[in-house]
């Protein structure tokens, strides 16, 4: 399973995050929130200075491109756990 992080951040901002946190997986930049809108995850004026950003969400997509698991949190403070994701990853076997 390949982790892919997507946000409105520019590649440079994501690069700074990866350097700071030591992340080595793929970070994609969606500055105009086009893909975020396509996934219906736009949080209008949710960011600093009223910027449109993504709401938190996770999707597990199989090799055929089909969603096998998803997590749409209702609370910003509550995100999925590594344990939940690893359990969901069993669906790909």
């Amino acid at each position, binding site marked *: *399973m*390949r*982790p*892919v*992080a*997507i*946000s*409105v*951040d520019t*590649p440079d*901002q*994501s*690069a*700074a*995050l*990866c350097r700071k946190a030591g992340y080595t997986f*793929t*970070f*994609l*930049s*969606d500055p105009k929130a086009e*893909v*975020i809108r*396509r*996934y*219906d*995850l*736009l*949080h*209008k004026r*949710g*960011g*600093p200075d009223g910027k449109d*950003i*993504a*709401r*938190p*969400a*996770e*999707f*597990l*997509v*199989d*090799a055929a*491109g*089909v*969603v*096998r*698991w*998803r997590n*749409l949190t*209702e*609370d*910003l*403070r*509550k995100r999925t756990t590594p344990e939940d*994701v690893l359990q969901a*990853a069993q669906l*790909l*076997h």
Partner: protein
Amino acid sequence: MINRQDRVPGPVKRQWNWRIWTGFLLALAVIPAYFLFFLRFPVTRDVPWASWLMFAGAGWLLLAGVSRAFANSAVYRGKIAGPFLAFLSLTAAIFFAYATLYASRQLPAAGDAPRVGEKAPEFTLVAVGGNTVAMSSLLSEPMPGMEGQKPRGLLLVFYRGYW
């Protein structure tokens, strides 16, 4: 010879009311403790019981301190500071309740987000380093360090951003 009784009695120094100040400092510590520490662990993050326990302890100390200040004001200080610090502590508790019970739940519903069993919409985006990456290529290119194997799938993590 001077008898002890003959000394001019000075004003009695009233005792410092430590319960009030300890309670206030405990209440003041709840919000930074939650956002800097308890938020890291799902068990203290999702239901902030540890934070409410801190508020309960602070409330108990403040109540004990304030009631001493009023019931025994000849001995204990804090008739003015007590109610004032209790009010500030209550304000912190109300703010914490607002932040965790209301503000953090104001997320759009995402009613049309792809469901389980549906095809995930294809996308092409720019990655760190400037390469343009398509979802299909993320599925078909081998994983680093996995001996040329393709990934079994993708974990798409949409997040708010780093600011």
